[in-house]
């Protein structure tokens, strides 16, 4: 009797599970179709475009050319410098903003008067539109005539630095660091505030210095937060476009993949070649991101001794 009933109930259970699974799949389906339509079909179309010789200004000369555009992409010699520029700008900006973000997060983790105001002010750079932020930096910071940085160097008795002319790479890195530090700070602040106070208290009772507590308790605890911050920051920064388009115009090793792509598509109006660049960029981004992040995580895992 008892075995029969259990068998029965389990059959019913399985049935309801299958039903539930079906229902959940059906519920997911619209979203799935939506995202396929929105991301995969354009990608397939891009691949198709990349096999065409198609300049928008020569509509009568569209023809199928197999892989000529890809040959052009690799032969023109713009791809490698752009890849290096993208990797260089992204990695420097991510590292600087994580370090600065950690510093600010530690300061914000303390109780002080006006904490909420300070936090809001510190977050503001990340809330600005990238194009607006680039314009602010271009005109009010880096400008050689009225910029704050020139005024400061002159007030300190130095000769003003010709930022955009001499140090375009640094200009982009500084601006991006400024913009992404709050993002890193927020994630790391969340990490700091999730520490159990008992552990810190115990460390204090045992006579650990503030530095030792930070080094051996807080940092290992923050590891996963740093990982997620680096991962998200890298993904976002790999697409960096605005400061390059607005401040440096691709000079001095700042021509990133996305700016190169923009030039081909919207300045050159060369749809075929731009599409080929797009496809290559997607592949490269996946490879670079995977390799860089894996090796990065290994370092952290060893450092955290987990």
């Amino acid at each position, binding site marked *: 009797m008892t075995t029969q009933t259990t068998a029965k109930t389990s059959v019913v259970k399985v049935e309801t599970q299958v039903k539930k699974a079906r229902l959940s799949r059906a519920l997911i389906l619209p979203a799935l179709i939506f995202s396929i339509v929105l991301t995969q079909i354009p990608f397939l179309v891009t691949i198709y475009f990349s096999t065409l010789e198609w300049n928008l*200004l*020569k509509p009568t000369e569209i023809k199928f050319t197999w892989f000529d555009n890809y040959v052009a992409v690799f032969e023109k010699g713009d791809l490698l410098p752009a890849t290096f520029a993208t990797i260089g700008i992204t990695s420097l900006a991510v590292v600087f903003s994580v370090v600065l973000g950690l510093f600010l997060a530690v300061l914000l983790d303390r109780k002080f008067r006006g904490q909420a105001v300070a936090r809001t002010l510190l977050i503001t750079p990340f809330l600005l539109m990238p194009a607006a932020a680039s314009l602010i930096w271009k005109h009010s910071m880096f400008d*050689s*005539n009225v910029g704050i940085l020139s005024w400061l160097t002159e007030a300190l008795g130095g000769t003003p630095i010709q930022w955009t*002319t001499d140090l*375009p790479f640094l200009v982009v890195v500084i601006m991006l660091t400024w913009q992404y530090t709050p993002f890193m700070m927020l994630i790391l602040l969340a990490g700091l505030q999730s520490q159990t106070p008992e552990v810190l208290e115990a460390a204090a009772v045992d006579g650990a210095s503030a530095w030792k507590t930070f080094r051996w308790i807080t940092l290992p605890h923050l590891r996963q937060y740093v990982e997620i911050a680096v991962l998200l920051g890298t993904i976002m920064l790999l697409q960096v476009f605005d400061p390059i388009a607005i401040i440096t*115009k691709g000079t001095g090793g700042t021509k990133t993949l996305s700016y190169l792509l923009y030039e081909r598509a919207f300045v*050159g109006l060369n749809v075929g070649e731009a599409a080929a660049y797009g496809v290559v960029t997607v592949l490269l981004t996946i490879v670079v991101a995977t390799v860089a992040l894996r090796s990065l995580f290994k370092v952290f895992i060893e450092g955290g001794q987990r």
Partner: protein
Amino acid sequence: MLSKKRVITFGAMLGISALALSGCAASTGAGGDVTLTLATVNNGNMVDMESLKGEFEAANPGIKVNFQVMEEGDLRSAVTADVANAAGQYDIVTIGAYEVPQWGANGWLTDLTEGLNDGSYDVEDILPPVRSALSVDGKQYAVPFYGESSILMYNKEILDAAGQKLSKNPTWQEVAAVAKAVKTDDVAGICLRGKPGWGDLFAPLTTVVQTFGGSWYDMNWDAQVNSPAFVEAVTFYKNLLDEAGQPNPVDYSFNECLNALKEGKVAMWYDASVAASFLEADDSPVKGKLAYSHAPVVKTKESGWLWSWNLAVPANTKNKDAAIKFVKWATSKEYHNLVGTKLGWSKVPPGARISTYSIPEYKEASAAYGPITLEVMNAVNPVQPGVNPQPWVGIQYVAIPEFQEVGNQVAQLVADAIAGRTTVKEALDKGQKIAQVAGDAQK
């Protein structure tokens, strides 16, 4: 239940938008009335045109004009995509002198030669160099709305204080000598564009190259970017910037130089003639302190550039007659009078019609810069601006579709040379290869 409800809502929304779309389609064709769609750039003179369109609509019952005003970059891509694909969204488009000959030759624009040929319109009154830049094989494809050349502008007070003088037609060597002589720690000798871009750095630089005897291409479409004359001109430009130019040159284009000259931070400036109307405006701190001369030269007689914003009618518009009517109205003598009386005489579109410069009120309003603008614009030669003949019409650009990209890339290389990261020769050797690919496509 919920999902059903959603489906219904979604269906309803689809239905509504379908209705709305069909409504849109119906409104254009209703009742014999014509609605013209005009794409234009958000420059002051075009905004003035929009504010006066009521006068046209009142005089031409049955025709309405709908303005779509955009940023220059957006306009360029929107209009190019529309016209190239024959989408037919616009009845009138605003395009630059760079696009007109190319699009005309492609058959994308209506040939206006006949339509403009009526006595009261007086097509001969349009500045001849501008007209020739807008024509291919004797067919005129667009009408200039306003035009400009490039001139040298300088602060007389600064030059006088240093005991320096310039003639009406200076050479580049004279200008360089004056720039070095008037330069101090606080005031740069000359402001020249250094921002990379075919329309930024390479607008003035191409005119310098041409007067040094260089050119982008020879008659066979072989690139000449690393030819001795081209290298000499770019080296001259870079050295002038190094020795007497504004600090941080790669940051500077039209607006930055305009501010620098207004604030007395530079003594001279070589750029678009339209700048003079800003420098002589009532709110300008240097109003009345400036003098103007022709673009400096070396081997040619004139070296000014030529640019115009023009109205053209795409070949596939359904409202061709009404569109031509509006184009003629907006570029007529009557329109210039209308702007002068309604909005003020300094706002009359410059550089399009010769007769504009003989209107007494306009003469008075533009006394400082009007005569020289007209003089320079009449003197430049877009068919052969340099020492040698060239296979395209145009001065500070090459009228081929690839030029925007070629010009941008070479400008980036030259900017690296200006900053001292490479030499001029290295930069132009690389530029030569880029330019040759585009040249080969023309053969």
